[in-house]
């Protein structure tokens, strides 16, 4: 407990110093670009911790949840199908690597003509971009199933589905979780980018609109909101990961990064 307190203190002191410095240095700022932190936080409170959350935060979170959810399910299922089938692996590998390497924003112009500028376009671009890191890691994890584990499944005549659920997926879970973590970051990125380019709602749109209207404090408030959102989602992911990979951490010490 004492050790954990110490680590927490070590992690927190620098951010606190930065915030304190920002607060004092910007206190009487009249700069257009750097309004006082106090003002930014007031705008943040008024926009994102009140009724504004419904208007600006909710559309972003819905797109993120749908897009990431689709990517996670498709990525893991696809990983099992491709990873367990040598022919599918060979045939699809180059394609998967191509899309993995393609920067997601490059697909935005296509997404807009194909799906318009509504929710469908954003969900699609988030799902499509987040899919490939998840898929790639899942394929790798499934392909790496231990030969002894396979032999056990055959020796005890497990059904195909049982073997996948009880042995293949848990065995691949360290890599699947690593893929899901990268996928989450990609999804958040594409959530914002899609709102900056073509949108009428969401946090990204709010930031862009505030900038265009010279509401710089609002713009900063939006940036703070995105930063906090990223931190919260990452922390939540970490909690889920520690639970899912409890056995792995117990036997290997740490998770795959």
């Amino acid at each position, binding site marked *: 407990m004492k050790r954990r307190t110490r680590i927490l203190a070590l992690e927190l002191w620098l951010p606190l110093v930065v915030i304190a410095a920002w607060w004092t240095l910007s206190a009487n700022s009249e700069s257009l670009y750097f309004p006082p932190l106090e003002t930014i936080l007031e705008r943040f409170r008024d926009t994102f911790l009140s009724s504004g959350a419904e208007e600006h935060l909710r559309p972003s979170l819905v797109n993120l949840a749908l897009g990431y959810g689709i990517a996670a399910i498709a990525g893991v299922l696809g990983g099992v199908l491709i990873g367990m089938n040598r022919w599918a692996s060979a045939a699809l590998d180059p394609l998967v690597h191509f899309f993995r390497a393609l920067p997601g924003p490059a697909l935005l112009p296509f997404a807009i003509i194909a799906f318009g500028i509504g929710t469908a376009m954003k969900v699609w671009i988030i799902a499509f971009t987040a899919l490939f890191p998840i898929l790639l890691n899942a394929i790798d994890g499934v392909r790496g199933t231990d030969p*002894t*584990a396979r*032999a056990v499944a055959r*020796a005890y005549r497990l059904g195909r589905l049982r073997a996948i659920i009880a042995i293949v997926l848990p*065995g691949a879970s360290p890599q699947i979780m690593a893929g899901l973590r990268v996928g989450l970051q990609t999804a958040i990125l594409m959530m914002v980018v899609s709102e900056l380019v073509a949108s009428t709602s969401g946090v990204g749109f709010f930031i862009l609109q505030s900038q265009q209207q010279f509401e710089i404090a609002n713009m900063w408030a939006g940036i703070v909101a995105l930063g906090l959102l990223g931190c919260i989602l990452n922390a939540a992911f970490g909690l889920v990961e520690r639970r899912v990979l409890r*056995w*792995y951490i*117990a036997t290997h010490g740490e998770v795959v990064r």
Partner: protein
Amino acid sequence: MPLLGRSEAGTPGADDAKVPDTVISVDGLGKTYGAGEAAKVAIERIDFDVSAGEFVSIVGPSGAGKTTLLKCLTGLLEPSTGRTLFEGREIEEPPARMAIVFQDYGRSLFPWMTVSRNVELPLLDKRIEKRERRERVREALEAVGLPGTEQQFPWQLSGGMQQRVALARALAYKPDCLVMDEPFASVDAQTRFELEDLVLELRHRFGITVVFVTHDIDEAVYLSDRIVVLTRSPAQVRAILDVDLSRPRDQVTTKGHHRFGELRTELFELVQTQRPPSPAADA
């Protein structure tokens, strides 16, 4: 009526007329890996039978193809020539009444499942009611001396205890025949003796036929009724040794017996004095 095993009195197979006298029949078995120039013959030709209730060890120099033989006779690998019969039927897949204990318990037990789940896993697809499954798991863990470990994870147990869990998994499967691949190769000597005695006890109690692959000569003599000695690769049967030591056996008396020493020497010579074939020998 106990849930595990087929006979109560420890008379193997005696009360079950359906089981043929020969459980396993290895018939002209050969295995070649690859083809053409790169082909490597792992097993030249092997023939032997295992009778119901018998304890047969397979011993040979390292790299002789023991593991290949084990994979072929369990149906995990398809032989290139010949075949293996299990209870009168040709093996194509691992048979339902055969259980395998693998050498590396760290890989054959799944760290994401509790001990109980690991033991229960093979029963899940077998249309066995949940209550009976639980009961089998409990009995099997008790039989291997690990009662009450159901909710622990394998990695919370010592190596010897983990191999006991693997053994419990095999027992709960209620096999006629237990095939073990160097199961005690990675535990310390003391644990090894305990596990050897446990296998003998379980085999006596449940009347199971055992095929036991090992490279340890003392272990083979101590455990077996017969020992199949393989030649160097490509493997053939060099000799089949009858072990005429009385049962029950125990680590002190049996191993102190002069006959144990004789068999040990005989087996040692069969295994260790094999020279790799050299061209000069033909001249």
